[in-house]
């Protein structure tokens, strides 16, 4: 079976700085795979290369067998990307934003309308969808953005720090949504700092530092390897 994601020797350089220094990993369909690592180690750059908005300096990334450079347009048809701390169009209402994004990703038609309706349901914002986004709290905006990212039913959803800056309740609701969608067959590639979140969500995790993969396995296997019950301890031992 074709992997949902295959990363081979992925490199990204900015002049002399190597943000990603030869990553290799793969993600199977329906899996929630998490990239974990300190700030500035290349997680977001990796996600952007997979989302086709940055070009790798070397190596390759394939989404369901489609190359992110050669088949960029086809890749964009089956993925959805949620950037870290992304905003939305402040002068649109939540509903207008979902309608707009549904049309951008699926063009006009019944599929777009169905996706927008699904987005409304997933966001859980109810009547507030009629209000302008500039009136939303950070949690509400993030729920709207997550709903936008998954409402189009992408085969691979790429979420950069999906619960960053959210309170416990909002973060919990978002994690539940991701888990439920993965159970329905959607593949997720996420990055996060939150070890509790990672352990709750992910089938496997990839720990990266300075653009390199230090370890890639299930949380249980990693904890066993480092003889600890704490995933944070694994992370610290790997990155120090």
């Amino acid at each position, binding site marked *: 079976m074709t992997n949902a994601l295959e990363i081979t020797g992925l490199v990204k350089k*900015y002049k002399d700085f190597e943000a990603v220094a030869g990553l290799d990993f793969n993600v199977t369909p329906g899996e929630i795979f998490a990239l974990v690592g300190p700030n500035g180690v290349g997680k977001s750059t990796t996600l*952007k290369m997979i*989302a*086709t*908005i*940055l*070009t790798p300096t070397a190596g390759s990334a394939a989404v369901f067998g489609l190359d992110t450079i050669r088949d960029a*347009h086809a890749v*964009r*048809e089956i*993925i*959805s*990307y*949620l*950037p*870290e*701390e*992304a*905003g*939305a*169009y*402040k*002068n*649109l209402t939540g509903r*207008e934003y979902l309608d*707009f*994004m549904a*049309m*951008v*990703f699926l*063009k*006009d038609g019944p599929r777009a309308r169905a996706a927008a309706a699904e987005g409304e349901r997933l966001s859980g914002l109810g009547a507030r969808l009629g209000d302008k986004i500039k009136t939303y709290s950070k949690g509400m905006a993030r729920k709207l953005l997550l709903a*936008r990212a998954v409402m189009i039913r992408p085969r691979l959803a*790429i979420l950069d720090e999906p619960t960053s800056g959210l309170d416990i309740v909002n973060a919990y609701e978002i994690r539940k949504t991701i888990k439920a969608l993965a159970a329905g067959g959607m593949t997720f590639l996420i990055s996060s700092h939150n070890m509790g979140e990672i352990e709750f969500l992910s089938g496997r995790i990839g720990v990266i530092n300075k653009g390199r993969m230090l370890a890639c396995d299930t949380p249980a296997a990693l904890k066993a390897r480092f003889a600890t019950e704490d995933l944070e301890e694994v992370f610290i031992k790997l990155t120090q």
Partner: protein
Amino acid sequence: MNIFFVLLKKELKELLTAQLVITIAVTLLVFHVIGKAVGSHNKSSAARNGIVVLDLDRSDLSARLIKAIAGTRTRPSAAPQREIAAAMAAPEYAAENSFMVIPAGLQAAVRAGRTSNIEYYSRFRRQASGLGPAIAASQIRRTQQAAARETAAYLMQLRLPGLDPDFLRDPAPPREFAVINGLTAEVSLSQVIGFIQSQSYFFPIAVFFIVILSAQMIMTAVASEKENKTLETLLSSPLDRRLLVMSKLAAATLIAAALSGAYLLGMRSFMAGVTGLGADPAVAVAAAAPALAALGVALGGPGYLLIGLSVMFCILCALSIAFILGILSEDVKSIQTMMTPLMMPLMLAYLLPIFIDMSTAHFGLKLLLYAIPFTHAFMAPQNVMMGNIAQVWWGILYQAAVFAVCVTISTRLFSGDALLTLRLRLPWMK
């Protein structure tokens, strides 16, 4: 709905905020109110600016002089005082600024062939501002001319009875002809120039407004999308990136055109109020209209269309350059500084042709100005009126080429890493 219109609708909603609409409405209102207030003040100022006449001669000639002055829309008031200082100090003339002293013995001196001086005093007040002093100066000049003409007529009737003083004053009046592109018409050069200037009076201001407003809008649109990371979402979608570029350009053009139309209305309302001549500047040269039409300088439908085309490409050039600058902007805060590379050529294109005769300008300067795509739009009305149609078309072609190059660069930047990784830091940016 076509995806382009979906994008356009989103852009319009983002750009056309309630604050912007309120700002424009308030600006229009302020222009209108100030225009009305200034116009009304100047009218009352002009009405008040009569001239106080101290007639120390009390002769036929002095009576004729006062009558002649009244014929120049100036209101003469006969003062009983015999000294200018006393008249100026009199409470009843405290508001008057212009005084005229007809000396005793004026008529006798003129009859005897001796020079005698009529004196004019203008009281210049502290904190004088507005158009009042200019109106007073013009009134004094008119009064002096009327008095001189009447004195000369009096003398001519005395010495050369039976001859028309007007004929004696100018027995061979001039006839002035203007020649443009081989066409000749009886009209003065000043009327032709006045007409050309009146036709293009508001034009450069409107173009300047459109360019600045639309450039700022599109730079803000691009920079805020980058800052909010909404652009990253759009770039990861299957949308054709050229559509993203074109929808932003179209939205900024539409709003800029509407806004500058509003500004233009405000300016016209303001000027109409200030001058009291009505909004149409062509009124001033209406008398010469047939001659101007015979010269081919009057603008017709095709002329206006050609100018409109040139302005449209000027705006598109500015937008596409601003788009690139927006891509290179670090954030929304840096927009004002990033406008500099656009403002400099725009100012040159706007100001230099006003002060420099392009037909005799140095080749290097001409090259510089014509290399700026905005120059062609600023000069389009004059070129159309003077029949330089080919030059307007070449200008439009050049603008179209610049626009195509800039859009290609924008689309390339939108399709590559540069959009997310490139930042332009100008030397004066902190």
